[in-house]
């Protein structure tokens, strides 16, 4: 049977490297036995060793940011961006709190639409790129606000995406922030590795994992948990989104995405990760996201709003008790 070997999460290996390549960042790079005959041997042997110099810049920039929270999910379309937007709005409801949102989904940025800033563009100043203000104390940056036309496809391979993620982390002039929320693309690939690597020294306060109740989504979340464990990111907990649907006309509750394998509750139990809460599906959430409105302000009575508020309070509590 053919099987792939468990990957080493943070080792950088060029595509044309021999089988036992020690990784370009290793002390052994260019000197190991496996390096003999590799076309990159000389570059590896002469290149400066040690961590990426960008990490130092990121750490300096992030020194004015108190809390850094990642929003992750292996699967797409489970509500990462919606949740990030709600979290941003809820945190900034306190006028003394400064919050920022960084959208590192480069090929499919949703933050501009959800925050209603799709017509804004990012400007550069002497201090770096200025993030776009959503409200007085909530700002955001996204590749969606840097394109000539919103329909433009960003057809970039990994290295270019990594370059932009690094720029977002070191060149954006956030000022002093209480919370920086990072909205990620689906999967466990370039963007995720880059953001985790570059924030290694600045420190990530925790990751929130989003899922929906079906097994296809849970499968991908299990992979994301595996990723977090491999790279050593603290998981704050799991949020189950789209759990149940309340019909607006008859108030009857039905289940659209059936938890065929026990849903997030069982996943949380199996993995020992806290289930932060369950958010029911409310068609008005999607509407608000499409119009860039604050759902919690528009419909505070919705069961979904109540669930959001509880989850957000718990997240605040978790990151502050450290």
């Amino acid at each position, binding site marked *: 049977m053919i099987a792939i070997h468990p990957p080493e*999460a943070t080792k950088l290996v060029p595509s044309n490297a021999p089988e036992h390549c020690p990784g370009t960042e290793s002390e052994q790079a260019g000197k190991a036995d496996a390096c003999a005959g590799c076309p990159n041997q000389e570059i590896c042997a002469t290149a400066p060793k040690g961590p990426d110099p960008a990490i130092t810049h990121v750490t300096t920039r992030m020194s004015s940011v108190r809390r850094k929270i990642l929003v992750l999910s292996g699967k*797409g379309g489970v509500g990462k961006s919606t949740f990030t937007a709600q979290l941003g709005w809820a945190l900034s409801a306190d006028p003394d709190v400064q919050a920022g949102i960084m959208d590192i989904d480069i090929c499919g940025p949703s933050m501009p639409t959800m925050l209603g800033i799709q017509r804004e563009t990012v400007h550069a100043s002497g201090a770096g790129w200025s993030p776009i203000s959503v409200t007085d104390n909530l700002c955001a940056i996204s590749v969606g606000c840097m394109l000539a036309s919103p329909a433009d496809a960003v057809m*970039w391979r990994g290295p270019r995406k990594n370059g932009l993620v690094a720029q977002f982390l070191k060149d954006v002039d956030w000022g002093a922030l209480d919370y920086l929320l990072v909205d990620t693309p689906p*999967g466990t690939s370039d963007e995720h590795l880059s953001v985790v690597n570059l924030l290694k020294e600045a420190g990530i306060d925790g990751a929130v994992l989003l899922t929906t109740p079906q097994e296809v989504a849970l499968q991908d979340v299990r992979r994301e*948990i*595996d*990723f977090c464990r491999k790279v050593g990111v603290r998981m704050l907990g799991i949020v189950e989104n789209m759990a149940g649907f309340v019909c607006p006309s008859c108030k009857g509750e039905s289940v659209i995405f059936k938890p065929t394998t026990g849903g997030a509750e069982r996943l949380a139990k199996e993995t020992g990760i806290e289930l932060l809460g369950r958010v029911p599906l409310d*068609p008005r959430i999607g509407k608000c996201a499409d119009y860039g409105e604050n759902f919690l302000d528009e419909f505070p009575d919705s069961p979904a709003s109540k669930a959001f508020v509880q989850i957000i309070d718990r997240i605040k509590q978790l990151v502050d008790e450290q």
Partner: protein
Amino acid sequence: MSTTDTPVSRRLAGVKRILVVLAGKGGVGKSSVSAQLALCLHKAGKRVGVLDIDLTGPSVPRMLGLDGNGVHQSSMGWVPVYADGSTARLACMSVGFLLKRREDSVVWRGPKKNAMIRQFLSDVAWGQLDYLIIDTPPGTSDEHLSMMEHLAPVADRMSAIIVTTPQAVALADAAKCLSFTRAVSLPVLGLIENMSGYVCPCCGEVSNVFSTGGGQEMARREGLTFLGSLPVDTELVTLLDAAEGAQADVSVEDQQAEFPLLHRYERTASFKLFHQAIGTLLQAPEAQLGASSGP
């Protein structure tokens, strides 16, 4: 070696049509559309292959009830996993079959993903196929570019289906996806609007959970064929999610059917709609699809 004779072109010589399922956004139903497409084409008597190039979040094995299967090597190459048992007309390949434990993560940067896709395209022994369906990950990045690059010698047999939901966020990504197909000159067969409305099981009221009509509007504006809209079908969600979990309600008749999954799929409301949606695709002679058919 000329540009038209590569390991990929030799391997895919017996494949008549290649359909790429794209979306831009995640979670809009690419994999479920791929699975339904495969089942409908199987039903029409075609030989179908499904290749899942979503390397960090493979969903096709689960949807076709093939979780836990492994891939074996033969003298011909990698043997795909067959969803329909001995009939062997629905072949499937995914990175999910290569993982030792299903919760293992594939934490790969671009170059390794590129190598895996090349291997999938050049090493899998599909044999003769009428359709090869390629299920893609969200976005327009490494996987998509690698796929287009390696399939360049067979580009005349390729076309795309774009899946979206009616929300503005999904439509924005679908527009990016369309720009991608234009940039790489990939013909688009049509657009499918998924999750368009949900029928409340208690009162029958149709709720537009993810809004509605956006897909049709986009197809009109961009001059694309609108293949149809599919409502949220809880029956289908359950069927594709729990290929093994929902055994309890499987009747004896289902178990005796030649291909139980297809048998059960035919009874969902989605089947009729989907069958209609791709009717044009099934009826169109090969030539109309812009194809130079295989050998």
